[in-house]
């Protein structure tokens, strides 16, 4: 079971040892930070990058960031949209194993990925973003979802985002990951629709309708992370409370706020990934330093090695 980013890197190295490094299509490599992380990951043997974007712009970005891209293949794409569409085509043709979002706006990329004719979505599967966080204050990695893809969450989407996070956690060796459906309270109130929906999903989980993870909800954030608080609030027989792996937020704004709060103020170490599509997408935010982009690349590479 992978418990830290150090272990993730170690395990990825071991898996790559006798194989070729996963091929990473870098979508529109704008921004020095992303290029730096990609080149570092290539130099350390985690990936073989293929840059998909405007060649002249890539070269000037590289010069400005003091990076050498001459060793890497560049596929010409005149704008972000064509860059993404080319990357999707290459992924489907088996030419690349995963994507890295360059330092471009996440929403702009997501819009292209989720378009009906993009070919990126998998029928019956939800696409969602997962932020994996490591902090000294919590005894395990936190999977915070979904801060980037699903702006309007219906019950099916909520189940989908939990299943995506559970699939990723399982890949990382966490068996039967524990998912908390977060709310403001842990009691179920008809006047608070989120609690009713979360309770219904938890019931589906109890009855074995959703497999591969334990789900409980509604749970407040402190109940999800702290067994004592859970007990003090009368939550005594939850398989999730106090030991949560997956923090499923009831709205995109919530997940985004938690992600930013954890990076900026809790100084958590983070990786970001969009999961559930044709291939994984390493995807972080402007707030993330190079190290977080690097973690995301390694995580996506690791996920493709299963």
């Amino acid at each position, binding site marked *: 079971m992978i418990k830290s980013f150090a272990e993730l890197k170690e395990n990825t190295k071991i898996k790559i040892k006798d194989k070729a490094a996963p091929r990473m299509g870098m979508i529109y490599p704008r921004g020095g930070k992303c290029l730096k992380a990609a080149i570092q990951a290539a130099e350390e043997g985690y990936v073989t990058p293929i840059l998909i974007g405007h060649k002249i712009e890539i070269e000037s970005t590289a010069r400005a960031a003091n990076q050498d891209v001459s060793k890497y293949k560049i596929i010409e794409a005149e704008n972000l949209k064509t860059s993404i569409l080319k990357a999707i085509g290459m992924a489907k043709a088996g030419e690349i194993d995963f994507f890295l979002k360059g330092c471009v706006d996440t929403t702009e990329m997501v819009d292209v990925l989720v378009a009906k004719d993009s070919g990126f979505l998998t029928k019956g599967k939800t696409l969602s973003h997962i932020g994996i966080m490591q902090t000294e204050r919590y005894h395990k990695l936190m999977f915070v979802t979904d*801060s980037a893809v699903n702006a309007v969450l219906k019950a099916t989407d909520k189940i989908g985002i939990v299943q995506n996070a559970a699939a990723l956690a399982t890949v990382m060796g966490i068996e039967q990951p524990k998912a908390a459906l977060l709310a403001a309270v842990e009691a179920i109130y008809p006047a608070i629709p989120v609690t009713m929906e979360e309770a219904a999903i938890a019931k589906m989980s109890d009855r074995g309708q959703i497999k591969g993870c334990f789900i409980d909800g509604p749970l407040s954030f402190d109940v999800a992370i702290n067994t004592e608080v859970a007990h003090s609030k009368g939550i005594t027989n939850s398989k999730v409370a106090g030991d949560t792996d997956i923090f499923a937020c009831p709205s995109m*704004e919530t997940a985004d706020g938690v992600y930013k709060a954890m990076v900026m103020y809790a100084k958590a170490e983070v990786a970001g990934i969009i999961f559930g599509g044709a291939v994984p997408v390493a995807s972080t935010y402007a707030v993330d330093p190079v190290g977080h982009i690097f973690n995301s690349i390694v995580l996506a590479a690791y996920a493709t090695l299963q």
Partner: protein
Amino acid sequence: MSTEIKNQPIMSSDQIIERAQEIARKGKRKMVAVAGASDVDVLGALSSANADGILDATLFGDRDKINKCAVEGDIDISKFDIVHNDDVSKFTYEAVKMAAEGNADVIMKGFVSTSGLLKTVLSHDFNLKTKNLVSHTAVLDIPGYFKLLGMTDGGMVVRPDLDQKIQIMENSALVFRALGINPVKVALSGAVDFVHDNIPQTAECRKVIEKVESMGFDDIVIQGPLTFDAATSKEMASLKNIEGPVAGEADVYLVNSIEECNIIAKSLINFADTVFAGVITGAKVPVSLVSRTDTLKNKKASVSIACLVAEYYKSSGVLGGAL
């Protein structure tokens, strides 16, 4: 010694407590009416705040149960009057009445339900209701942010509509005026920093801003949608090319749902050493509440901020909701 209280901007939770002490020292010590005082956490907070010279309190509830709680928690309540009644609706009524008659400045929730207490506060028997709904503001002292950040509403209004959002904003703006902040910079929360067709919350931001601007509030500046990073970090705002009067220096982060507020605030409290003070505004008297899981400092800051709001109402003549 001057009895003037300087209304310099308050930037931290320590300053909230210090200002409340200063107000008390200058002869304006606040009286807190506690509805259902048989609550160890409430008594502990009040006793400690009293020892620090912040406030006085009158305890409404069952005398035996109150005394039992004091013994159980080893809390000195000798400085407080107890008004005995063992009927919850009666002692709640009596506590609110004390405030409505001007003999208490703050109403505090003890061992009673929040909804029951607020129903009494807003009942026609008392003239405490304003044109606004009542809402909760969590004032967060986040290490790494250069000022206090108000988040609202994580406790009362489940999913505010357009008008409710504006009322909630006014209620929080009052709290920040009481903290000496002028103008109050309000950021409307979003998962992205621009209006986007596929994200309904962002389209609503535009409507909120239009309405706020048409209402012509003095001393409120509003901007949104803003992500949490763009709202609270100038560095992030400039990195993302976001300009505007609120970006990077929000006083109030006005969010879309009770869950959003509660969950983000708790992530900061649990993982980023954030101290918080909470208060309910929107009635003519501030309502204070503390929770079992609060630290003593949180509790003290919470009762202190209610005292500051009460002082602001008195000194300005502005009563809750009448911004």
